[in-house]
């Protein structure tokens, strides 16, 4: 792989990664949101795979394959199962912020991400590090999704997006954290998503829905 292809593929992956996040903000249908999340997982896995092939690093390629399986297949499947069977559960209820404003806020957050990541690029101005603002933008957008959506599952999607953003940052700036940390972190995330999935099931049975506005018993 030449330097130019490497740069091109890396930028494409980072761009697709950010685009998926923006589309998730735009869409309301829970099923298509989960599908977009799977595509974001593919873009994420492309980063370590590209770096692994470029640097001829077998360990990094292995990590990329694991990431692909976990984030593009296993976790979206877990979420898709939790989306449930009832038709009225499949759509996000009227969000707290309307779509146009949401997309404007997303643009603002992306600009903010460029400002926040300046010290990182200053320390190591490599092609990979230059893509870090896209990963940071996804982290900020994910936090925004978590505070502005009302379905329990949308919050789980936001959490996974947050985690994708952090993983992308790790791959871009350091070619991944040490293997044991990477494995442990992936395992934790998988368990956390599993717990959230199980909880939405319990909630649907107890509350008859997963609108988080119904969670208002505990106050003060």
């Amino acid at each position, binding site marked *: 792989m030449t330097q130019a292809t490497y740069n091109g593929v890396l930028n494409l992956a980072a761009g697709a990664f950010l685009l998926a996040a923006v589309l998730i903000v735009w869409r309301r249908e829970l099923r298509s949101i989960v599908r977009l999340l799977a595509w974001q997982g593919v873009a994420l896995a492309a980063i370590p795979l590209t770096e692994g092939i470029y640097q001829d690093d077998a360990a990094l390629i292995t990590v990329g394959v694991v990431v692909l399986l976990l984030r593009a297949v296993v976790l979206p499947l877990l979420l898709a199962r939790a989306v449930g069977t009832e038709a009225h559960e499949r759509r996000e209820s009227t969000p707290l912020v309307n779509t146009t404003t949401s997309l404007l806020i997303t643009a603002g957050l992306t600009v903010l991400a460029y400002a926040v990541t300046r*010290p990182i690029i200053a320390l190591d101005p490599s092609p990979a590090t230059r893509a870090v603002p896209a990963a940071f933008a996804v982290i900020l957008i994910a936090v925004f999704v978590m505070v502005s959506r009302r379905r329990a599952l949308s919050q789980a999607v936001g*959490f996974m997006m947050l985690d994708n953003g952090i993983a992308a*940052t790790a791959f871009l*700036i350091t070619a991944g954290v040490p293997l044991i*940390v990477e494995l442990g972190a992936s395992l934790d995330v998988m*368990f956390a998503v599993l717990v959230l999935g199980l909880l939405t099931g319990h*909630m649907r049975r107890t509350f008859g829905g997963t609108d988080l506005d119904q969670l208002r*018993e505990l106050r003060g």
Partner: protein
Amino acid sequence: MSFLLLAPIGAPLFAAALAAVLGWRRLTATVTVLAALCILISAVTLGFNHGPGARFAIANLFRADALSITMLIVIGTVGTLATWASIGYIEAELTHGHTDAKGANLYGVLVPIFLAAMASAVLANNIGVMWVAIEATTVATAFLVGHRRTRAALEATWKYVVICSVGIALAFLGTVLLYFASLHAGASSGDALNIDVLLAHATRLDPAVTRLAAGLLLLGYGAKAGLVPFHTWLADAHSQAPAPVSALMSGVLLSVAFYALLRVKSVVDLAVGPGFLRTGLIIVGLLTLLIAASLLVVQTDFKRMLAYSSMENMGLVAVAAAAGTRLAIAALLLHVLAHGIAKTLVFLGSGQLQAAHESTRISDVTGVLARSRMIGITFAVGLAILLGLPPFAMFASELSISRALADAGLGWVLGAALLFVVIAFAALVRNGSRMLLGTPAAGSPAITVPGSVSAALVTGVILSLVLGLTVGPLLELFQTAATSLGGTP
């Protein structure tokens, strides 16, 4: 020595495996108590066999110094008391139909896993592994918080998992940035996150990136430690969890999360100077104290009252860490240990009160001292410790924290913190006396106390008295830990 490092993690994992195979029964519950005791014994042996200054490590994966040993002592002490009380607590829950055999089995497996995760967090040599262990505590405790499966318990679990996972994810981002800075300071990729390597390269870490990392770590681990702005889960989770789990979460888990902050603080202080995290900790600590004190005043639920008291104490600990002197950190560690035991006493007591009244409203509970001497006296002792009354240890620790703050030139912080502590004091005294004193209302139900709960309560009171009268050899351990964290005399 490597056996003593592995035992605190291995013993509870063994207990969890046994509980998974055999289900909830006296035998497995007793093995869990022994496993918790094993954590305590390993810590004491590590601490005193070779002097508190000694350091142990195996395979670059685990290490124990005075600070880890101190935290292991806290985990072991509270863990032993809480698991001991669990035996009677769960048996009573089963008899009253609040849980079923499946729930009890899950409880029996998750509690020792929770203990093992906390022990791994304080023994981890790599701050990435430390992060993995702390996130594992969230996963392990999620279904413990939702143990009762009621609407309120589910709501508390959801908030707990979502808020803590987001917080802890930010801490992971901070860890990744620290790794990036460490690589660029010349560390090799395999051990760039090891505590010693980070300390050795600390002065060469890029200040701008380290500041960004430190901010994220403070927010992230602060969420787990119940500090502002991600504190909103705490009162819900601590009030809905079964009493022994509340004791573990309030008494130990909060301080284990704070331990992570102390570890990264020692690195960040060397890299960007102590001013950065000091400012952050003062802001976060004082705001936490303010919110906890205000909510304590209007509280009508006794388990939530205890949860906000934990928040208040974590705020105080954050302020003490901001002072950063040797005296402040040694006092902070004593405070954490005394608080752990006190919270065990009051949460175990509140569990029995909740079981008797089927309610956690303060106004439903009257004249406890006249109705049950065991619960009345131990609850009063726990409150007295939390109020910082002599002869208990929090009197000494709060006095030392005040002196350390004054010495560090943080007089205004001391003033503000004292104001909030006094407000909290008044609220605790008012609510506590309402519950404990006076004549019982007509028709008050009998308070039953299972044998194992009584045993844990009495042991806790004895430990508190001993700790209050003499810190003994622990003082040297605390001081060594404080010095290793860069505390100036």
